């Protein structure tokens, strides 16, 4: 892209570490720490989209359509979810 500064920061979603295992039924395992978590279907959808490298806007849009929920609510929930992903060190490029 020519002008990288034009990218809206909101559109960049965090990346999930490559070694994190996510099963179809929402069981998440971090092999580095041995921690495991369970997520519901919405969480699973988010994780799968994050793993695919989808942008935040796309994720929010798709969730809003799938669950027929208000974009603002989804955006807030997505933000909370990302904070938890960070808290449990499941994301790449930790500060």
């Amino acid at each position: 892209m020519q002008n990288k500064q034009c990218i809206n920061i909101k559109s960049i979603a965090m990346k999930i570490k490559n070694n994190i295992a996510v099963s179809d039924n929402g069981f998440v395992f971090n092999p580095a720490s041995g921690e495991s978590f369970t997520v519901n279907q919405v969480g699973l959808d988010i994780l799968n989209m994050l793993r695919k490298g989808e942008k935040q806007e796309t994720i929010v849009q798709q969730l809003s359509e799938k669950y027929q929920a208000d974009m603002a609510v989804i955006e807030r929930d997505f933000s909370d979810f990302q904070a938890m992903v960070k808290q449990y060190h499941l994301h790449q490029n930790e500060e």
Partner: protein
Amino acid sequence: MKNKKKLTIAVTGLNAIDSPGPGVAVIRGLLEASDFDCRIIGLAYESLEPGIYMHDLIDKTYHIPYPSAGTEVLYNRLMYIHEKEKLDVVIPNFDAELYSFIKLADKLKQAGIHSFLPTMDQFEARQKVNLPDFGKKYNIHVPRSKAIYTVNEIHSLEQEYGSPLVIKGKYYDASLAYNSDQAKTAFNKISAKWGLPVIVQEFVHGTEYNVTGLGDGLGNTIAAVPMRKQYITDKGKAWGGITITDQKALDLTAHFLKSTKWRGAFELELMKNKAGEYYLLEINPRIPAWIYLAVGVGQNIPEALTKLALDWPIEAFTTYEAGKMFIRYAWDMIVDLKEFQQISTHGEL
């Protein structure tokens, strides 16, 4: 088909109880060895050690004297057993007996009984009272600690280390103390049981990890498997755990082995704080009770240790399966009184 050599291996630590000795797990590893078949001789201190009655794992068990009886008494007993069983290897699994077995190692080898144990210097350097010096010498983070002889010293350490404090016996036992009263009670209880000094250690908040492994005595890592405790009993023992891939823990283990030239099996007890730094809490100079997890993920440490003891060629393990768990369970065996009577009166079963 490979014609496997048949070895006779003596193993201690048959107390598969709530704070289990490693013996039974070690034996399971030995029986699954790919390079040899074996006959297992159990060495027990008490008649109610459950391993004695596990006839599918142990061919014969003999009582051996407690370490307090001295090395000569132990040697004589081992020679008696050797005469009958023709032992090839002995694997001691208790901290408290290691001193005697290390001291006797050369003499036993001359008699044909091989072992692969830490040197006496290595054994002493990692004692709890020496851990701060050990950390300094090898550049490994260890929690601040001090060996104390009087209860009065607790107050100043409380100021220095903050709360809670970990009060530890010189060989076994540890308890957390959240205030001076608790610390003093723990000091009195532990010193009455294990003698002085008592170790007062700074508490490191974090998640507990353990690494078991094997060093060849030349600085090389023969085996290393890290595990996160998932379920901890009130005695601090892992009742469930899972293998992990944490590179920092593996690097720390390799550094430990390279810098100390550790000889034999070991377990590192580590605490990872919120910043992701590892603190070395303890070095156990032997195979841990959860060793069968390492066997289950592809590193048969009891087999590798046996091969090192016999000077057989050995290749270092380089992989293991991460994300495999162990879950311990208790099992009631029905034992005929005659068996209990036999081991109690004759010291053999």
